């Protein structure tokens, strides 16, 4: 079954320019993603920061021409942008060894130079989306609800133990645990486009 998704796809909100908060939400989540992704290329802190700013700026300029309805490859596009920006910067920074071909050089400076970039990028993105969404929900959750969720879903303790510890009944622990994840999921879903089905 599907959690009713009242929030539109974030990308579509960006494209429609329907609300300005879409942009800040997008930046909040993706700036650290791109930053950490760039760090995988052995870039220095300042360079990784530069990469993330550059990618966000490019997105801000190009997002409207990105055809979200035709395909759900937004994150693929994003990871390409990030990789391109990182590689460009690496290239700019390197003292060019004479002769060496680009690809050997890249393989030597970037241990994990992965020609299938989307995997690493998607991991970072998923990580950041989870942290961001969980923080939003934590901020607006009753302490008991949050703890019931955390202890059962994250720390994987048996619901009966948690119920006992928190002085709740098992049914309520389950309600808290599930409602909390449902809320987290509904915040993350706008970041996943059609390809998430």
């Amino acid at each position, binding site marked *: 079954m599907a*959690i009713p998704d009242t929030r539109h796809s974030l990308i579509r909100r*960006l494209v429609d*320019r329907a*609300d*300005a908060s879409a*942009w*800040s939400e997008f*930046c*909040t989540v993706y*700036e*650290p993603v791109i*930053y950490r992704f760039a760090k995988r290329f052995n870039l220095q*802190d*300042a360079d*990784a*920061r*530069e990469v993330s700013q*550059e990618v*966000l*700026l*490019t997105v*801000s*300029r190009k*997002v409207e*021409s990105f055809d979200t309805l035709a395909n759900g490859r937004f994150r693929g596009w994003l990871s*390409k942008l990030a*990789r*391109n920006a990182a*590689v*460009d910067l690496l290239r700019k920074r390197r003292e060019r060894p004479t002769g060496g*071909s680009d*690809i050997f050089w*890249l393989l030597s400076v970037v241990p994990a130079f992965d*020609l299938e970039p989307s995997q690493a990028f998607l991991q970072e993105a*998923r*990580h950041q989306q*989870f*942290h961001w969404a*969980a*923080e939003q929900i*934590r*901020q*607006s*959750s009753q*302490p*008991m609800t*949050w703890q019931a969720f955390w202890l059962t*879903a*994250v720390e*994987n303790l048996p619901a009966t133990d948690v119920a006992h510890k928190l002085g709740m*009944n098992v*049914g309520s622990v*389950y*309600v808290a645990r*599930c*409602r909390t*994840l*449902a809320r*987290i*999921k509904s915040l993350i879903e706008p970041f996943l486009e059609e390809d998430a089905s």
Partner: protein
Amino acid sequence: MIAYRDECDSQLLVELLHARLDRVEEEQVTIHLERCAACRQELDQLTAPDAWWQDTQSILKDSDSLATPVEIAPSQPIDNAVAWVVNLLKPATNINAIGMLDHWPVREVIGQGGMGVVVKVWDEELHRPLAVKLLSPMLASSGASRQRFFREAQAAAAVVHPNIVPIYTVATESVLPYLVMPFVAGGNLQQRIDREGPLPLTEVLSVGVQIAEALVAAHRFGLVHRDIKPANILLDDGGHRVLLSDFGLARTIDDASLTNSGMVAGTPQYMSPEQARGMSIDHRSDLYSLGAVLYAMATGRPPVRGDSTLAVLRRVGEDQPIPVYEINETMPLWLDRLIQRFLEKKVELRIASALDAVELLRSSLAHVRAPVRNPLVKELQTPSRSSLSRRILAVGLLAAMLVVGYVSWPTKPSTEKVATVSSQKHYNKISNNQFTAKDEMSFDSDIPTRLNELESKLQAIRESIPK
């Protein structure tokens, strides 16, 4: 009396999940859940597929900050940004305070921006209020933001100037990094504009002079502020002195990452065209932003407006702002010429330095205060009457010559002229299109093509490796 319901019902579970049951029903279904392991399992599945539960565990398990619940009832009308601050404070020892930050009693939350929250604290020893800027916890976890935060401290601490908010202390060891500054009592310029609309001409110029002075000092240190806007300009108690604050995005000129580093977060309404486009910028970008601030003070609104950040980013440097006097007819025509010196899109044509800006603004202010004694500088003057009439004469002569020329050269058909003009227009259109097409191409296909080449090279290498 409602029937006791102790049976499995998926639909009820869905309603329960989305908190759509009334209290009695919710209680009943919860009691049923207590007894029925199958329904508990079903509720898990209705919530999210297994992968989500697994990710929840593997992704969140190492986060200590997320593990701790927020001890504030969500029913309290405190917004998120403020809630976390209050949450961080130790209980107050003083009835005037909402809590303690290290040894400081916090009086209130006074501001909130892109980097975090600013609170007012009381300095017990010196009996004065201070402003403490805390980096938001979400940003504090990112190395980049921390760096940016400390750079603000370094940048502002380096420049000592009456029109720049000084930084007293930087705390790096506390729960969250924070900066301590004097409390500036008059609020920020944006609030003043929102409250009162356009400012009087003398104030527009006087605020302009002070910010230009602050920029002279910052630029002398090789520091570009990059975020000059009314919300970052604070007003002294009497409202006469203004102080530039928030050096969070400032960079030194020789910082290697200066080129190519567009700032995205934040309001782009005051950004120079080169900054909005992510091109390399220098001190003249701040001068553009100062022009936008002058415009906002004179008219009550920024020169570029749009429905969203994206729209504004795109529009900066493309639209010609509406002339000041059309929005605020109490303003003289020359003010528009003055502001235009700052809002010049082409960097080379823009006013060249903060020092020049100080001079121009100062002499204009002197002129407003004593017009007879201090004539307006030449570059802002309207063409005088006598030179105007000379021009009319010149145009008349030219026209007469043309008529004579036309008469004595009747072979030139007038239709050809029209055709030339329209084809010229047509050409302009095409070349504009070509420009955008080329612009797109250089981004969308150039780099990916290069990467594809790399990819196929690597593929070839892989294939050449014997198995």
